[in-house]
């Protein structure tokens, strides 16, 4: 086994820690920092440093080290936080992210950036700590850069990917010279282990055989940490750690007395710390030190292993109830459950054809199976669901920075952060949402002066909300800004050569902002105004099977509403029949269905037909024409018109029959085939056959293309080529 196997775990965890750190940094109240928050930030930096050290990610380790020191001073009150300092911290956090990415890709991080950030941090440390100490007065002088002047030094040089476990271990350990005994460890692993121990401290000597191999080492690291590292390679019961000269095994849960000792001597050995700074240290954080050990032992005993050692994977509190599973595995389960549902409905169909009392049990069993299968499906689908908090949590930062750049005062409110959404969708919604938020900040909310002049509070309010509605999730970006300006939009649209008229409905006018290359911003700013983006936003959201609506009231603000399906894997569908073929329409797109009467159908130039539905003329899309179904009803009044909505427009789809509503498992056509126009995906019906799920806008496009192709053909039939035969079959 190789330590590199744990890289991925480390990367993932470090990423989470950084996200955590960012959240805390943003929440931090500069004037009255919350001690718990500072601690949390410190712990995150500390844990990353530990991991980086073990895995040999030098640059990352050094950066976090400096960062950690600074944070340590901050949480000890030796450093007065300022807003720009928090900005620097955030920058550092980004830097750490970059470094992490570099390591993940097997590259060395950018050296220049590293040096720059180090200098910044060192300068901050020098300036601020100096000041802080003066202010505190009388306190023992500390080394300005103070690499080791941190109470948690014992744990600092070790690793254990889990932040809490590690922090615990740091307190629960001892220091100084000790004997690590490896019991029943093969020669190959022994070499690896000694090497590992070498990274944790200084190995003085090692000897022994397979049954008992003793390593004498000098280390500032706690026993718990040594154990945590070793346990990557061997089992806990193969390991024995005791202080030199001591006979018994030292367990991770040492008596509180040992802790006190540790507190006064924070193992400065490695860093050659001076006694004074050690004292200063002990003095500065006694609270933290003495409180925790007392709380430790019970925690340790809770852990499943009898040795009571903190396992590297163990988490504290609510976190311990989660496991990490690869998305592939989850998807596989979802697929299998989908199959189960299909098989179940196949059986169901067969059973429903049976008659007679003898089948009573079978029928009962089937209904039970059906219920269980549905429950199972629901439960499995929920695995993929993650709360919107995952998305919303990054916006405080975006808002803060954007508002800063624009010189606006903005308060961000999030609602419904617990609303759950499919993971793949959550990841894909981030970019479009970021764009919308920036846009609202830039164009929506007015500068403070303008707001005051309009009789509104100086501080603009931006609300991000998420909620479930039916099978959809609705995400809204609401600002209380000036609202969209109809005249300006229309003028701008004319200028950019778009086809607009003054009689357009507000909805249609608002949709103009999604036209490519459209921007009403007076000048291009760093934030927005280039006119690229909004169309991309719309496309992205449509790509996820959703759509965007805009509501705006002049002077009061704008709401941009994104409607997305909860999941891409399952769809509420309406099965329709055209000729002998079955298709599925996404139920979310279906508004109503009706039988068209002759007087409501109007022919328009060429082949076009519109259907009048309650004072609205809807383009008619004959499904059999678009999809070349040969045995469909062609008499318009005999068909059924399904009024559907796609990309904000309505169409009347002509179909032969409505069959029913059902949930279908969406299967990608592109896995083994390719994208098909007019079809978004496929599904498997109860009888095992495949039905295509129709893409409404694609269908409309298709039918238009066909109509466009036809007159041309009439005019010049001789020019027809063999290649056209695929389009020809319909006529």
């Amino acid at each position, binding site marked *: 086994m190789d330590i590199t196997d744990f890289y991925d775990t480390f990367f993932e965890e470090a990423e989470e820690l950084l996200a955590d750190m960012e959240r805390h940094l943003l929440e931090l109240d500069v004037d009255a920092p919350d001690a718990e928050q500072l601690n949390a930030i410190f712990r995150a930096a500390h844990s990353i440093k530990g991991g980086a050290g073990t895995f040999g990610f030098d640059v990352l380790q050094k950066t976090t080290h400096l960062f950690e020191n600074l944070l340590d001073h901050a949480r000890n009150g030796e450093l007065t936080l300022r807003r720009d300092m928090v900005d620097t911290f955030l920058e550092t956090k980004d830097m750490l992210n970059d470094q992490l990415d570099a390591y993940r890709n097997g590259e060395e991080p950018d050296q220049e950036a590293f040096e720059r950030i180090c200098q910044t941090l060192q300068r901050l440390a020098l300036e601020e700590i100096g000041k802080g100490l003066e202010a505190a007065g009388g306190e023992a002088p500390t080394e300005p850069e103070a690499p080791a002047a941190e109470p948690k030094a014992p744990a600092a040089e070790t690793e254990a990917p889990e932040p809490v476990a590690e922090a615990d271990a740091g307190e629960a350990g001892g220091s100084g010279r000790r004997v690590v005994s490896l019991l029943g460890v093969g020669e190959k692993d022994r070499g690896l282990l000694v090497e590992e121990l070498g990274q944790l401290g200084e190995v003085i000597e090692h000897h022994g055989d397979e049954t008992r191999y003793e390593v004498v080492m000098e280390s500032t690291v706690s026993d718990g940490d040594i154990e945590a590292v070793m346990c990557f390679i061997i089992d806990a019961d193969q390991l024995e750690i005791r202080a030199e000269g001591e006979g018994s095994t030292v367990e991770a849960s040492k008596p509180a007395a040992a802790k006190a000792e540790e507190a006064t001597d924070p193992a400065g050995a490695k860093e050659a710390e001076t006694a004074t700074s050690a004292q200063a240290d002990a003095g500065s954080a006694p609270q933290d030190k003495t409180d925790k050990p007392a709380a430790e032992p019970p925690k340790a005993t809770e852990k499943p292993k009898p040795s009571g050692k903190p396992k590297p994977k163990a988490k504290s509190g609510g976190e311990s109830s989660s496991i990490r599973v690869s998305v592939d595995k989850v998807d596989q389960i979802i*697929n299998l459950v*989908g*199959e189960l549902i*299909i098989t179940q409905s196949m059986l169901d169909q067969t059973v429903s054809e049976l008659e007679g009392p003898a089948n009573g049990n079978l029928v009962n069993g089937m209904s039970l199976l059906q219920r269980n299968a549905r429950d199972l499906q629901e439960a499995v689908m929920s695995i993929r669901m993650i709360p919107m908090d995952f998305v919303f949590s990054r916006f405080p930062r975006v808002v803060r920075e954007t508002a800063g750049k624009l010189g606006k005062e903005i308060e961000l409110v999030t609602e419904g952060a617990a609303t759950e959404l499919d993971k793949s969708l959550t990841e894909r919604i981030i970019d479009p949402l970021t764009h919308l938020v920036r846009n609202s900040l830039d164009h929506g909310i007015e500068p403070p002066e303008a707001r005051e002049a309009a009789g509104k509070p100086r501080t603009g309010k931006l609300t991000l909300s998420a909620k479930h509605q039916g099978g959809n999730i609705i995400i809204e970006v609401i600002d209380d800004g000036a609202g969209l300006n109809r005249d300006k939009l229309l003028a701008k649209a004319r200028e950019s050569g778009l086809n607009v008229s003054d009689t357009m409905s507000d909805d249609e006018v608002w949709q103009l902002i999604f036209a490519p290359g459209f921007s009403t911003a007076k000048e291009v700013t760093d934030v927005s105004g280039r006119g690229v983006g909004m169309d991309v936003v719309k496309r992205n959201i449509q790509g996820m099977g959703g759509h965007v609506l805009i509501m705006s009231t002049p002077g009061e603000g704008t709401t941009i509403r994104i409607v997305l399906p909860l999941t891409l894997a399952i769809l509420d569908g309406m099965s329709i029949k055209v000729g002998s*073929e079955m298709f599925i329409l996404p139920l979310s797109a279906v508004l109503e269905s009706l039988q068209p009467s002759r007087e409501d159908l109007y022919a328009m130039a060429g082949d076009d037909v519109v259907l009048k539905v309650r004072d609205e003329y809807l383009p008619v899309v004959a499904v059999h024409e*678009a*999809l*070349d*179904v040969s045995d469909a009803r062609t008499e318009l009044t005999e068909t059924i018109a399904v009024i559907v909505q796609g990309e904000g427009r309505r169409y009347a789809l002509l179909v032969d029959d409505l069959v029913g509503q059902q949930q279908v498992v969406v*299967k*990608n*056509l*592109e*896995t*083994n*085939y*390719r*994208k*098909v*126009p*007019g*079809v978004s995906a*496929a599904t*498997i019906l109860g009888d*095992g*056959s*495949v*039905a*295509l799920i129709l893409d409404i806008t694609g269908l409309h496009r*298709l039918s238009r293309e066909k109509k466009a192709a036809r007159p041309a053909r009439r005019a010049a039939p001789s020019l027809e080529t063999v290649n056209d*035969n*695929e*389009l020809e079959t319909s006529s």
Partner: protein
Amino acid sequence: MNQTTDAALAAAEAQNSEFLVFSLGDEEYAIDILKVQEIRGYENVTRIANTPDFIKGVTNLRGVIVPIVDLRIKFHLDKVEYAGQTVVIVVNVEDRIVGIVVDGVSDVMTLSPDQIKPAPEFGVTLSSDFLSGLGSLDDRMLVIVDIDKLLTSDEMALVEKVAE
């Protein structure tokens, strides 16, 4: 490395390969048996509109949606009918699963390299790019199809090209 020439090396690799022999009308074709996943009947194929006529549609292969290609139409055979003998050979091509409709599967044959002759330049219907060679066995001639190349080719329109 010893002094083997490339041709000899390739021959050694291809030594005694096994082929699945199938018929399209009166002609006999063969494909590398390692590409074949399974053979099943032709049934329950859902038509897909606006695709070339040789793409019969898609079918459900134990929960996986698989496109079905009729090679008889692709190769412009006169008689295309779906009878009891008509089978679908499910092949694995570049991580994709594709079913090909043929008139029947006859047997599995082992061919040694010297039984495989290079394919002559053909006409338009079946470019010799898609052939690995012609196999001769007594008085039979097998057209050995490079199914990978054929099914991923542009003219089969089975695979979406990145440029699109």
